[in-house]
């Protein structure tokens, strides 16, 4: 069905004199649309509009034959604009844009009208639906006259990556990127790499020891010539955009070098002590320290915050291998992409939360695992307060799945309402470990639910049950209470309203109370500011889309790996890191990154230099050209939100593809009473 020529006038999109030749393609969607909307009638009426040269329907517009038909019509009829009316643009807009490209037409001279999700599927009366579809397509016909050809932004990508964080996720990402031939810089805040995996004894579901696994991974990374690791290094600032990030980092001297031989002497000689973060506060360590015997790098570091530079360590080792000068060095790293792998911290229970910090018998699951570690601070023995441990109670969901108004709030007034995911399996793993070593110890597991969701995790629940662990279930609105045991049977008694026995109150004796704590993201507020990361309500980094783009941030070129994104175990961190590495490598390998062209542009004639726009850009993409006194938008940084376009009180900023004149054309057509398309 062809119309009779191009009577339409082109809006200011395209330069004077070009006639519109619009092709309109309306989809039946196999009945999904055409069962309600009379698509044939709409196509016929649309054909009569000025500028429309072709208007017809097809059963499945997204199918290969239909796309071939569109291509053919573009060439045959010399179409210079294409409208597809079908399902939501979120599904197939890209498909159709590629069709235009194949036919040699600029892919942005395209309008996609949603007449399925927003018309045929939601409007009951077919007549009203048909009119609405026609009205929306008319609006598109008007809008399309104001579109100009656009080009994707292409930004060259420097062939290197920066990984922030050298825990398991950062190391896996670095290893995988290096294997692709990319140069990788890894920046780690601590003097030692490996992250929290090094603090574990055994890992589930294989029951292997964590540190040998970690060592294997570390060896792969450090021996790869493509990888450079910076320990004791923090990110100071980062400028630039995808493809060209310039990051200034500051490295604090380690204080120790490879010439140091009498490590034990040096450490013993040090008079200053502080709590050991590695052992979650169970022990102390010196200012010069190694967290564990197989740490990497295999040499101590000096904690300058604790060190008083008394020099006793230096004396003890004959002056060789230790340098007490602590001036930091700054280096600028150049990278095409960035991977954030900054990890998590365990939730720190509040003072008094289940008796934490009040009763010495209350510890966290992390601390229990340190005790169970044969190489840990207690040599694999569980001790607390010098008494023999006969009864252990474990409470799940300390700092997780909390209800506002029930649990103690954090300083900001909010509670941690999300599930921390890994702690159920970790707690049951610990219970089994204890039972295997000391079958006589009674273990009482108090939980809201058992969430052993992973592959092989359910076995821990089964075996723990078989091993005699007693399970009690509480409701999150009625939390267990921890009190001193006045009868003296055990130091503590935990009172729980047990759902498994129909709400009976049960008193559980506890020589040791273990809180299976939730997790929070490690504090990276400066990095979040620097890279303009979106964060979720739970404070973890927010990916673009959890299903379609799980390791990408809205800022192009910055990826996330591991538990900075949310609670996850080592398996999941590894997978996420590999995904991030793969995404990052693809970007680098391509040599350039392509971004949509719907960015803001300043009309230099209209800009009055009022500077109102400078503070509104979430990405700081707008700057002022002092010599001309006008605003300038960075085409690479701009993400196309359009906020500045709405802000400008002189209407001097336009957002390409979403310009005022384009939207106005749409509005005029929608509100046009004379077209007799009112309902």
């Amino acid at each position: 069905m062809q119309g009779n020529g191009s009577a339409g006038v082109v809006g200011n999109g395209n330069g004077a004199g070009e006639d519109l030749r619009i092709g309109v393609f309306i989809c039946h969607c196999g009945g999904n649309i055409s069962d309600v909307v009379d698509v044939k009638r709409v196509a016929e009426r649309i054909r009569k509009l000025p500028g429309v040269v072709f208007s017809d329907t097809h059963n499945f517009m997204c199918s290969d034959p239909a796309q071939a038909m569109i291509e053919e019509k573009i060439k045959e009829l010399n179409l210079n604009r294409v409208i597809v009316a079908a399902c939501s643009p979120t599904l197939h807009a890209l498909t159709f844009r590629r069709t235009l490209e194949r036919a040699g037409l600029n892919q942005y001279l395209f309008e996609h009208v949603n007449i399925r999700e927003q018309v045929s599927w939601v409007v009951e009366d077919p007549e009203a639906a048909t009119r609405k579809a026609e009205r929306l397509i008319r609006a598109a016909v008007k809008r399309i006259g104001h579109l100009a050809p656009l080009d994707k932004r292409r930004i060259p990508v420097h062939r290197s990556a920066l990984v922030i964080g050298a825990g398991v996720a950062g190391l896996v990402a670095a290893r995988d990127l290096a294997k692709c031939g990319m140069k990788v810089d890894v920046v780690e805040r601590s003097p030692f790499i490996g992250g929290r995996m090094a603090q574990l004894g055994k890992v589930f579901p294989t029951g292997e020891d964590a540190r040998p696994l970690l060592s294997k991974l570390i060896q792969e990374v450090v021996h790869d010539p493509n990888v450079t690791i910076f320990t004791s290094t923090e990110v100071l600032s980062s400028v630039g955009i995808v493809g060209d990030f310039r990051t200034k980092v500051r490295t604090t001297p380690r204080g120790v070098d490879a010439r140091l031989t009498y490590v034990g002497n040096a450490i013993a000689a040090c008079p200053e002590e502080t709590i050991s973060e590695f052992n979650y506060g169970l022990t102390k360590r010196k200012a010069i320290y190694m967290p564990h015997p197989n740490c990497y790098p295999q040499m101590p570091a000096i904690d300058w915050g604790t060190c008083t530079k008394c020099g006793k360590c230096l004396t003890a080792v004959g002056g060789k291998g230790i340098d007490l000068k602590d001036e930091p060095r700054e280096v600028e790293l150049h990278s095409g992409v960035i991977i954030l792998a900054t990890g998590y911290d365990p939730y720190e229970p509040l003072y008094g939360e289940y008796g934490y910090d009040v009763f010495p018998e209350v510890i966290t699951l992390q601390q229990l695992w340190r005790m169970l570690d044969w190489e840990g601070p207690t040599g694999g023995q569980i001790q607390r307060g010098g008494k023999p441990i006969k009864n252990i109670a474990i409470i799940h969901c300390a700092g997780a799945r909390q209800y506002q108004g029930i649990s103690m709030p954090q300083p900001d007034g909010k509670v941690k309402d999300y599930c921390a995911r890994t702690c159920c399996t970790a707690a049951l793993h610990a219970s089994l470990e204890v039972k295997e070593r000391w079958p006589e110890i009674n273990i009482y597991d108090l939980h809201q639910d058992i969430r052993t969701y992973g592959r092989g995790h359910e076995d821990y629940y089964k075996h723990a049950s078989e091993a005699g662990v007693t399970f009690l279930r509480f409701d999150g609105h009625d939390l267990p209470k921890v009190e001193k045991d006045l009868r003296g049977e055990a130091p503590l008694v935990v009172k729980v309203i047990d759902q498994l026995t129909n709400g009976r109150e049960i008193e559980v004796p506890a020589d040791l109370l273990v809180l299976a704590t939730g997790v929070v993201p490690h504090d990276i507020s400066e990095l979040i500011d620097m890279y303009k990361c979106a964060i979720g309500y739970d404070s973890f980094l927010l990916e673009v889309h959890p299903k379609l783009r799980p390791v990408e941030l809205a800022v192009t070129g910055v990826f996330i790996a591991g538990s900075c994104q949310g609670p996850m175990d080592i398996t999941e961190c590894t997978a996420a890191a590999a995904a991030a590495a793969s995404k990052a490598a693809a970007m680098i390998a391509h040599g350039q990154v392509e971004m949509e062209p719907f960015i803001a542009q300043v009309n230099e004639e209209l800009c009055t230099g009022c500077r109102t726009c400078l503070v509104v850009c979430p990405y700081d993409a707008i700057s002022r050209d002092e010599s001309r006194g006008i605003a300038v938008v960075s085409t690479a940084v701009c993400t196309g939100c359009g906020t500045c376009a709405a802000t400008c009180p002189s209407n001097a900023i336009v957002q390409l593809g979403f310009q005022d004149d384009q939207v106005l054309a749409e509005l005029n057509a929608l509100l046009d009473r004379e077209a007799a398309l009112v309902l």
Partner: protein
Amino acid sequence: MADQVMTADVSTRASATFEPRIIGFLCYWCSYTGADMAGTARMKYPPNIDIVRLMCSGRIDPELVATAFAKGADGVLVCGCHIGDCHYMVGNHKTMVRIPLLQRVLREMGIEPQRFRLEWVSAAEGARFQKIVREMTEQVRQLGPLNWPGLMRSRGVGHGMDLKPWGEV
């Protein structure tokens, strides 16, 4: 007060055949997807709303809203992501200031609050979108046509050159 004369007599203006024209400005990432979700779930709502898609609710210039009313919209619905969830981090922070400020100004111009709504709709809130649209359509239907162009014509605006803002489209 005399000014109440201006808004009086709603009952005579609203008629059984009046179909409100409502323009919805929706942000692509959350609210447009939420509206799609209502469709995927086959939730029915009145056809009176036409959706204009923008990338972010921060793109919604108060000018566009005023123009919509000036050109004959009986109602305008602005939807964006919930605060804290904006795909562009803080685009909706601007919306949450501009729209309430504009609502106050338009209220002083006699545009009833039910005609101009701001709602945060996430990609999962199809049912909520349906509820909002149904509710708003009925409320605007009860209020009757706004017909700003007709009102202005009756007051003598439009004899001279100034017929349409932004020229012919």
